[in-house]
């Protein structure tokens, strides 16, 4: 007699697994990463590699300590995605310890202490980022200039030696490499009461956002749209977030164009696009009902604008996402969809 299995239905399962989902997210990040590296040099790649290694090592350690199946979770891809998103938020050529501390913190404190995959109420990458920003503001804000604007182009070896020992090739000063980000300089210069037209005439501002940044953001946009097409993420969060950001910045822009940046500038500089498609869409810490995602996205967009314009930090996607993470369970509760056959359908 053949031994028959008797599991309960359904006996079919679709092709989707957590690993395939995460792999697709990483794939969608790739074009943006490549352009980013092309614009800003090896520092971008070094960040990602360092963050990934740290995240994987910490993940393995934590799984071991929590006595979870290490292999099964280690390669689910979630730690890698966290590492990549954090690395993309850090300044290229950041000192190695900054990357390592941030990634380890994200995995240990924001993920595993809450119960690991699926249980973290906050987006781990953003928790790591915010922790670094608060603890090491100087390192976190010294950004490289895009290669097209900077004076020097570091080789891989030179980049590595700078990241690990802080030493630059003879005759090169740090000032020659770094430059304020467009959002940063906008904030500073507006603080100096300069007019918008005057500020944006500087070479660090490009056609849409900051020079270099526009191309990176267009690549992230393309990746994000592909994710929507592949049904890995739903359109709700990105549309709501970018839509609300565009709308609110447009309102202020037409009221007082001299004092407020244009909607396009807001959309295409800083982390708006990356945040909309890759960070605010993190399912674990976000809202999950369709309507809830709209509110969640809109909240992130509005908060981003508020913090960018009037807050103490130049970019605000991380803070906005974390703030909305707190509201997600409540949003979900109040936006439950109308169940089939429960009135209002005919």
């Amino acid at each position: 007699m053949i031994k028959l299995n008797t599991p309960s239905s359904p006996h079919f399962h679709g092709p989707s697994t957590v690993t395939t989902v995460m792999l697709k997210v990483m794939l969608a990040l790739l074009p943006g990463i490549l352009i980013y590296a092309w614009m800003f040099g090896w520092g971008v790649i070094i960040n990602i590699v360092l963050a990934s290694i740290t995240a994987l090592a910490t993940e393995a350690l934590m799984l071991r300590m929590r006595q979870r199946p290490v292999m099964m979770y280690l390669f689910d891809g979630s730690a890698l995605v966290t590492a990549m998103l954090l690395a993309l938020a850090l300044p290229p050529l950041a000192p190695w310890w900054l990357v390592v501390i941030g990634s380890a913190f994200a995995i240990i404190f924001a993920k595993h202490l809450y119960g690991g995959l699926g249980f973290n109420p906050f987006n781990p990458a953003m928790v790591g980022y915010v922790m670094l920003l608060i603890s090491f503001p100087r390192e976190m804000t010294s950004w490289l200039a895009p290669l097209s604007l900077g004076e020097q182009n570091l080789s891989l070896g030179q980049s590595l030696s700078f990241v690990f020992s802080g030493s630059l090739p003879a005759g090169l000063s740090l000032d020659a490499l770094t430059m304020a980000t467009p959002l940063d300089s906008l904030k500073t210069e507006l603080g100096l009461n300069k007019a918008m037209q005057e500020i944006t005439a500087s070479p660090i501002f490009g056609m849409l956002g900051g020079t270099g940044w526009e191309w990176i953001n267009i690549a992230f946009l393309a990746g994000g749209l592909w994710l929507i097409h592949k049904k890995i993420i739903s359109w709700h969060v990105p549309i709501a977030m970018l839509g609300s950001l565009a709308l609110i910045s447009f309102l202020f822009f037409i009221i007082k164009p001299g004092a407020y940046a244009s909607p396009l500038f807001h959309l295409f500089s800083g982390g708006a696009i990356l945040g909309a498609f890759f960070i605010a869409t993190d399912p674990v810490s976000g809202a999950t009902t369709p309507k809830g995602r709209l509110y969640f996205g809109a909240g992130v967009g509005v908060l981003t604008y508020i913090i960018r314009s009037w807050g103490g930090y130049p970019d605000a996607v991380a803070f906005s996402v974390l703030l909305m993470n707190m509201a997600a369970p409540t949003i979900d509760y109040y936006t439950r969809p109308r169940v089939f056959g429960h009135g209002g359908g005919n």
Partner: protein
Amino acid sequence: MIRQLFRFKGGIHPPQHKDRSTRSPIQAAWLPKQLILPLHQHIGESGEPIVAVGDHVLKGQKIARASGYVSASVHASSSGTITAIEELPIPHPSGLSASCIVIDTDGEDRWIEHGPEDIPYTEMDVSHLRNLIRTSGIVGLGGAGFPSSIKLNPAGSKIDTLILNGVECEPYITCDDMLMRERPENIIAGAKIMRHALNARQCLIAIEDNKPEAYTAMIEACKDEDIEVVQVPTLYPQGSEKQLIKVLTGKECPSNGLPFQIGIVVHNVGTAAAVHNAINLGEPLISRIVTVTGDGVAEPCNLEVLLGTPMQALLDQCGGLNSDVDRIIMGGPMMGFAMHSTEIPVIKTTNCILAATESNVTAPSDVMPCIRCGACADVCPVDLLPQQLQWYARSKEFERAQEHNLFDCIECGCCAYVCPSNIPLVHYYRYAKTEIWAQEREKEKADIARQRHEFRQSRIEREKAEKAARLAKKKAAVKKPADGEKDDKQAAIQAALDRAKAKKEAQGVEPKNIENMTPAQQKQIDDANARRQQTDTSEQES
């Protein structure tokens, strides 16, 4: 005219695997040596046997009658001798056994005298027509098995639309497809009878667009009929009654309601053919078409099977079971259940026997935590939040689960199909539903117990009061004199008693007051009493 179609939310497109069983026409299944006919092959009360062991029965002879409004009779599917009426394994997810009538066939397959009624059904009293369908043992053949005569009784509602369900949206299953291809005229004849019984304004036949042959055949057969054949885009679970109604009419059947409340009745195409057999030929429901498929059998096909035939016989006829078979599923891979043995009989609701190898089904793989991706909610045809439901089910927050409309879940399996974390969601919902039912039953029991308790208390009190009254009356009559002295004495005794009682209570000897018990407490007590009684009797017995 092109009918406007609607969409229900969600749904999935699982791989179909239908073509493997549609290559050859429907064949008659071999007459088995033994037929096992469960008394319960439908939703509702079991049938009641009206034959005895040793009786010889003829094909089509009624051997069990319906034993309630929601019940169905059972007929001998071939001639032979009743050799047993006993508990045997029936098709059930838990491998349950239930009462079955066993017939050893005599090989003659001799029919009982039968034939259509003398008057055409159009001239019959509708209730008589329904009764004929009822006594023919017809239940929904699409899988649910609800007695069809009930679904042909609009009970005062005006029926606008009769829908014949030829959707067959589950992968692998093709019995309705083949029936529509080969015997469309039977379906239509049955549909006309049903429509007559319901006095329905219009009649639609819905077929998914992955069955073009069936569609063409039905269109051809409906040429001169006032019946509309509607092709609907393939989408699982469209064959589910309420979802199909939405697609065809745009109407949503209320959550706790039945379709006839919105003027619609849905019957499976196979049921229509069975109604045709019953009314136009006088043949009760004794056979059905079963798809035998999957890589576990050598020659997948559709067989016309006598009810009660052991599944093993069908597997043998299809070339035998391959050794790499992993599970045998009754029904489709999405909603069917895996069976514990192959000696289980085909019943009225057996539409498919899927002998699945490991490659036909998804091997169990690691279950990861929910990442709240919402994929499940996106495909849920009922618009539930499966991720929340599974959370409540697992943490046993059943009230929250019910608040999130757990009982609206049709167990279609779409959510589990897409879940990247591979969480057995439907399994959790079944678990939660069972637990809730159990709790309700317990609660009912407790309520009854409480009522009993209250009744007993009030009786005791009434008796006490009556006794006291009697006593007082007596006393008043007999001891009229010297009652001042007596009263003093009594008061002293009473005071002493009271003191003693107070002391006892302070020491906690007296049983705690039992007036304000919760039903749960009362239940525990009753259970304990019952246990005690049981041990008492067992002691007496031993």
